[in-house]
């Protein structure tokens, strides 16, 4: 009887371990397509398909994630610097309730697109393994850079990667 119990336990643990092994988005992979509502109720949905030939910087953030909040104003500067050269920044908010994210945005106005993903559907699709996580998608639709965590000194590297992947 014990043997059967252990077998069941083992099988169960294996199953739960396998569930955690879903494929994370890596450099070189085609970017998962997305179409998600904006955090602002009066703005249209945001879809990757609407940005053909552009360099898209996708970032996952939440109001409870301190490094995310440090990064957003810096991304805003970066966006304003390169928007004319074909850069789009899509900062996906995963706050649940959404109001937590909106509260932060009241104090920190941001110019780029901010979709809302309270159920984490997009985060699941990208298989985000830490917060914040960001993905640089080139004009060819492939992921060029995956960046996890954030320190202000990372901006140099991120800017270099964006410049190298701007559309011609």
């Amino acid at each position, binding site marked *: 009887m014990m043997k*059967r*119990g252990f077998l069941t336990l083992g099988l169960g643990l294996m*199953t739960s371990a396998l569930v955690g092994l879903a494929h994370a988005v890596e450099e070189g992979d085609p970017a998962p397509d997305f179409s998600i509502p904006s955090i602002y109720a009066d703005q249209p949905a945001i879809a990757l398909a609407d940005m053909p030939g552009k360099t898209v910087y996708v970032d996952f953030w939440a109001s409870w994630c301190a490094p995310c909040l440090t990064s957003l104003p810096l991304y805003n500067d970066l966006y304003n610097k390169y928007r004319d050269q074909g850069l789009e920044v899509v900062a996906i908010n*995963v*706050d649940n309730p959404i109001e937590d994210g909106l509260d932060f945005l009241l104090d920190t106005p941001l110019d780029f697109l901010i979709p809302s993903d309270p159920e984490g559907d997009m985060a699941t699709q990208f298989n985000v393994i*830490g917060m914040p996580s960001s993905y640089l998608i080139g004009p060819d639709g492939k992921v060029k850079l995956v960046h996890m965590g954030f320190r202000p000194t990372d901006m140099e590297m991120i800017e270099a990667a964006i410049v190298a992947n701007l559309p011609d």
Partner: protein
Amino acid sequence: MRLILSFIMLALLAACSQVQPWERGYLAKQEMAWDSDPLERALNDHIFFSKEASSGGNTAAGGGCGCN
């Protein structure tokens, strides 16, 4: 009997789920704390530190050197 036991163990395992990185905000909510009353928590910490002659070892990693 065996079958029932196996089934119960399997059912219990199904209840285990990993908190995903983007769901960690739930853990930061006040109702997720051991003591949801900040005043009571501060008092309990004070008593604990006094009795144990230690400081800072009650939550995250590190601390406990009693050096402040």
